[in-house]
């Protein structure tokens, strides 16, 4: 990764303001629009009655108990995935790294599939997903381990291998439980469908803990970009930094994936967009990625629930794929 100078010239302060405005706009649109048409005045009234804990009337339930938590969940998940993506890319100094690299996604998908096929209650699906996700990360790390070190290439390869094996297991399970194939498919494509306030409150600690830790590590991640040897000579405990960053990112990712399924490309694309506009420093990159990622996922989910694209993961992949190709071409020309 070359050190792209902040040549784009966009000031970080202005950028923060713009991105915060973008996130706010996405939240407003996401709350105001949906498959049921509700006039803006009524939406505002519903929000007011929700905030002040008054009795909900008419369409209030739709705005306050269905749309708003869904939008908040989208923002939370988008932010988590993007911060984790940025951190993974920094930790492994690999522009292709993303939250799914370490098999977290495949692990979660397998856990969810087991829970769905076994017919466990909905509340247990994310728990099962989270457990398998953590087991998957542990597998990847122990496969990649060389003494006390985790060489980046070994780690990526191990992640791919673990991911493939878990995906195979998931597929086998899907084919056994044919009636539930749709449900599993929805999960593996990412879906914010039934996200309520309770789900938001469950994901929040994972996101806060994971992303918070990564933000604290931002300065150390910057130093790591100078190269492992340099970082080590500057007193950065490289291996420990890697391990902590990976665990923190896995925690946030698993929390997000467990509740809404596998939403691709957000964690890969968003940090690249921020890096292009504001440069590679992690103290800027991570928080701004959170803002943009949140806005992007809320927008993608709005498209998913109002168009036949139907799944948020389909929208992000459709938007993210071409962007990523453009990015690859651009990097080569630069």
């Amino acid at each position, binding site marked *: 990764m070359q050190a792209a100078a902040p040549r784009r010239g966009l000031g970080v302060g202005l950028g923060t303001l713009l991105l915060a405005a973008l996130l706010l706009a996405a939240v407003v649109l996401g709350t105001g629009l949906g*498959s049921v048409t509700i006039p803006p005045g009524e939406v505002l009234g519903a929000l007011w009655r929700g905030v002040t804990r008054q009795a909900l009337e008419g369409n209030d339930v*739709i705005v306050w108990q269905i749309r708003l938590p869904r939008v908040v969940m989208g923002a939370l998940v988008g932010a988590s995935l993007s911060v984790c993506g940025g951190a993974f890319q920094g930790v492994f100094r690999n522009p292709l790294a993303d939250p799914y690299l370490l098999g977290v996604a495949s692990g979660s998908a397998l856990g969810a599939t087991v829970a769905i096929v076994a017919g466990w209650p909905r509340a247990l699906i994310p728990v099962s997903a989270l457990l398998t996700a953590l087991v998957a990360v542990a597998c990847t790390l122990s496969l990649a381990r060389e003494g006390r070190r985790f060489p980046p290439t070994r780690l990526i390869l191990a992640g791919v291998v673990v991911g493939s094996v878990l995906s195979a297991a998931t597929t086998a399970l899907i084919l056994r439980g*044919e009636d539930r194939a749709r449900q599993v498919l929805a999960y593996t494509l990412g879906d914010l469908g039934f996200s309520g306030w309770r789900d938001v409150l469950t994901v929040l600690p994972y996101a806060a803990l994971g992303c918070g830790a990564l933000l604290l590590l931002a300065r150390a991640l910057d130093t790591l970009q100078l190269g492992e040897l340099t970082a080590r000579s500057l007193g950065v405990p490289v291996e420990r930094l890697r391990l902590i960053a990976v665990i923190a990112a896995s925690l946030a990712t698993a929390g997000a994936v467990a509740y809404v399924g596998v939403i691709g490309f957000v964690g890969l694309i968003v940090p690249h967009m921020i890096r292009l506009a504001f440069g590679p420093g992690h103290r800027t990159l991570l928080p701004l990625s959170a803002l943009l990622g949140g806005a992007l996922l809320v927008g993608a989910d709005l498209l998913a629930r109002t168009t036949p694209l*139907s799944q948020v993961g389909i929208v992000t992949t459709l938007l993210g794929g071409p962007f990523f190709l453009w990015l690859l071409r651009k990097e080569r020309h630069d």
Partner: protein
Amino acid sequence: MKGILTLITLSGALSGAAAATSYPLTITDDLGRKVILKTEPKRIISVLPSTSETVCALGLCDRLVGVDDYSDYPQQVTKLPKVGGLYNPNIEAMVALKPDVVLVSQYGKLAEPLTQAGVTVIAVNPETYDEVFSKTLLLGKILNRETQARNLVAKIKGDIARVEILTKNAVRKPTAYFEIDPTPYSIGPNSFMGVLLTKAGARNIIPASMGDFPKVDPEFIVKANPQLILGVDAKTAGARPGWSGISALKAGKVKDIPTELNTMLGRPGPRLGQALMGLAKLIHPELFR
């Protein structure tokens, strides 16, 4: 009522007495393939549970030599060799059973490899309500049981009429949301299950414009505020954000579908009348006291 039915059955039997399928028979199947059956099939494999039921209802259960993994009715077919499911068909096992015909659905890509192995394959794929009858007649023709097929159709229609007489005049027809999958997916009024839901005396909240098996946005269901919810248990429905205020939940009208009824509802076959009866009893228990 009984007298009329007997009459229908009798007239069916008389008019059908002369009709026998003449072989070789050329038909265009549901994959659009022209298939020639040289003689009356004596060894039949069915890879669709509803087709297995229809073949048996035509009195040809003892001609079945193999069925798919999911065929389980009537009980007799459970003893037959299993030849796999939609995603894992056991083509070798099918060929080894030396069938005169394999009855497939339009899914699963069985036609080509089996035809190449010299096995006659016919796709018969009932999906809509009306196709249950037309495909039963088609199977009757293919298997030289046209009279029986006509009688079977008359019997199913009689079963349905008996339920409809009751539900047609129900005083209150509840608006209903029928969930077939907790993603959630529901059923449109033109789908096979949707037609049964309407005939059972409910008003489906899903408009035809949403398609036959649409993925539904949860806020749409809350807005539609159905008086009856089928296919979910009350606890699950109550735990969903914003659902506790839906009329059906307030009135305690949330009912899961019993497994056997669910199986029947998923099979466009000869137990259509029974499926409708079961559904009508769930929706209008007061009519069946």
